[in-house]
């Protein structure tokens, strides 16, 4: 019998997008891995408090429905073991050590999508799916993303940013600087995904209020110009060196911008089959061919300049009157991997998951060839 590889899917975590992460982990990742029947699937769930647990039943979404807190009073948190292999150790009457061959991170937001988890996995020398630490960290910071993207000569809207320290010490000065931008403005916590705590403001008082709210959620806040005659589109991309774009997708949300509820709650309620984002977007986006071409070109360029690998989604803002396309942000772990879009683009869940695993293994193999240590006589000479 063929020896199955063990894949750990890590989800949950100390993040505002904890619940979304549980959905992503199951639809499509774990569901598909179980369908494939080619891997031993180890679910690793991180609570909002940051404790790590693993139990076979966590492979099924039903485990997480309703109040789940009681379940963890009986369970012991797992331990990580970084030896020759990356392993988890489950406590019990007899402790059990499980070697992990590959990790599939399914965490959104802080500590997961921001490169923290990738840092652990790099140290553990285990292949993992998706973007590496640096790309994840840059993409998680909306300001850093804009700085990197604009430094590469790619278009972004005008913006200002501040830290909590500046907010506490020089809020007037910042509001003054931000007021130079073209109103209305968007106020966004820099590190939060899923459009959490994003506000559109039309004047100084609204700006001050929005900054107050945003600085509760993050220690770095972005203020940027809004794009008028807005068409918002997004482009999922897959690949390491050779990039495969999915379809350009246009959210058809009723509210002024793509908020958390549109992204997850409204779509999610309509059916569990595709999880999220299914009934409120247009795939492919009905935009002129020249704009599509521009979005595809910019998407790939952004993916490369940020050093993304595996999968990422690049969001764009288009001024439909001037036909100007701006790079908005990059998401290194799109909710539910945007599998609905991949499906519409001819990539089934099975193909998507298998391809991502293959990309992870390829990147890992390539990375292993990089020489990082060398003989040194420094210590001998002491």
């Amino acid at each position, binding site marked *: 019998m063929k020896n199955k590889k063990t894949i750990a899917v890590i989800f949950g975590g100390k993040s505002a997008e904890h619940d979304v992460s549980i959905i992503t982990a199951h639809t499509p990742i774990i569901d598909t891995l179980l369908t494939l029947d080619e891997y031993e699937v180890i679910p690793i769930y991180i609570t909002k408090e940051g404790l790590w647990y693993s139990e076979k039943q966590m492979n099924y979404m039903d485990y997480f429905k309703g109040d789940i807190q009681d379940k963890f009073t009986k369970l012991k948190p797992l331990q990580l073991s970084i030896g020759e292999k990356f392993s988890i150790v489950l406590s019990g009457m007899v402790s059990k050590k499980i070697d992990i061959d590959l990790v599939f991170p399914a965490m959104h937001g802080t500590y997961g999508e921001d490169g923290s988890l990738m840092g652990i996995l790099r140290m553990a020398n285990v292949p993992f799916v998706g973007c590496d630490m640096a790309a994840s960290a840059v993409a998680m910071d909306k300001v850093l993303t804009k700085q990197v993207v604009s430094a590469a000569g790619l278009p972004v809207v005008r913006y200002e940013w501040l830290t909590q320290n500046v907010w506490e010490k020089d809020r007037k000065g910042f509001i003054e600087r931000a007021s130079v931008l073209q109103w209305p403005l968007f106020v966004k916590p820099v590190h939060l995904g899923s459009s959490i705590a994003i506000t559109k403001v039309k004047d100084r008082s609204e700006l001050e209020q929005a900054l107050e709210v945003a600085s509760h959620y993050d220690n770095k806040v972005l203020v940027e110009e809004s794009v008028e005659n807005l068409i918002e589109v997004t482009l999922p991309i897959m690949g390491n060196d050779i990039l495969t774009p999915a379809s350009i997708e246009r959210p058809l949300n009723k509210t002024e911008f793509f908020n958390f509820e549109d992204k997850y709650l409204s779509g999610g309620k309509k059916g569990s*089959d595709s999880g999220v984002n*299914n009934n409120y977007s247009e795939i492919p986006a009905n935009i002129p061919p020249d704009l599509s071409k521009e979005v595809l070109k910019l998407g790939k360029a952004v993916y490369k300049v940020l050093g993304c690998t595996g999968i990422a989604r690049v969001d764009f803002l288009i001024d439909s009157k001037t036909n100007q396309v701006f790079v908005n942000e990059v998401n290194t772990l799109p909710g539910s991997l945007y599998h609905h879009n991949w499906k519409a*683009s001819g990539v089934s869940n099975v*193909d998507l998951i298998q391809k991502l695993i293959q990309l992870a293994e390829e990147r890992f193999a390539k990375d292993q060839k990089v020489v990082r240590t060398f003989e040194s006589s420094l210590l001998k000479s002491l």
Partner: protein
Amino acid sequence: MRLFFSRFHPRYIRSLVYMLQASEYKAQDYLAWLHDVKDFRFVEKRKQIKWSAKTVLLVFVGLMLLISIASSGLWLIIATNLPFRHVLGAAIIILSPILLSYLILAPLTIIQLLVQKPIEFVIIYFAKKKLAEHHGVKIAIAGSYGKTSMREILKTVLSEDKEVAAPPHSYNTPLGISKFIKTLRGNEEVLIFELGEYYPGDVKRLCKLINPDIGIITGINEAHLQKFKTIEKTVQTIYELADFLGDKPLYVNGESILARDHARPNHIMYSREGVNSWRMENAHSDLSGTSFVMEKNNVPMEIRSSLLGLHQIGPLALSADLARRLGSTPSHIRAGTLKTKPFDHRLAPSVDRNGVTTLDDSYNGNPDGVKAVIAFLASLNGRRFYVTPGLVEMGSKKEEVHREIGRELARAQIEKVVLVKNSVTPFIEEGLYEEKYEGEVIWFDEALKSFAALPRITVKGDIVLLQNDWPDQYI
């Protein structure tokens, strides 16, 4: 050994009662199933036992019987001085579940003989009497396959200008039909009956009850061969309808080789080529439906239907001809056929939110139907998935029929064949490779797992055909 001791599982009696219920309390079917079961813990797979007074009583009786058998073994050991009493007693105790599986038929048979049969006799007697006085035209449909579809097409077409009644669901036994007759108001102009054939003599018995004016033989093949044992017996049983009708009109499906070869000169052949001097032209079928032009004496009649597949032309044409025979106008026939649409689980299409088209053909489990559907699938554009657990009741033709399905799929160049593991699907795989199949074969342990997996392996534009169901009694 572990499988033997599955008879000692607490679910054992429930499993036996479930098997009786799923076999419709027919001893022969129950015993055939009993013979095949290896693990009695898992007989309820696709369905669950439906609790009723009868099943509760049977579970109780089963439990009492089991206790009695085991007690008798114990009694033998303790209270007698017979030689080998220990061995004998222990054997009775160990074999008590096996003895129970046969003895449970005894109370059932007693109930059937003393209660059920006399009641049925009375119901059928009064139904026959009522139907004999009914003035409606009685149409009887017999065949190994396609009876329900034929009934529904005919009912839809004729209902356009007539009062038509037909038993619902698959009421095709004397009792089922009698219950339907009881509901008749007397003003129906046409009555359509499906004749169920399970054993020789069944069709004749139903004909005596109905006394049909017009007959239809939809086709003959290996369906139910397990019960008939030989194809000759199947032909003989279905042709009991022809014997009964004598000179009265009988339509025979010319696309079914066995039905055609046994047809007599006075029978009316129907097929996609024509019926009763009607000629077909411009036949076309895709996911939106089927269309063709019927022409007789240079008078064309354009027919459109939402039914899928060119194999539907024969039944549609027959319905049109029969409607003309009963006095319907061409405009009524056109309107009637336009209303025909796929029935549940019989090549019924649906498109999900991801743009995947599913053709549910799970009630089609006969070789001719399968061949027709594969031909239809082959004519469609898109990546095509054919999902099947194989066909049941193929008896001695099991291997041949399934190899041929595999060969058909390979010739049709279906991209993905999804097979559910059981005793017949390996033959499909063999047939595929005999024809040098280049697509992908995907295996699943259970049908439900394959259904759950389909959304993960399909993409927009794919077409998924679900072919046949595999009830628990087939292993």
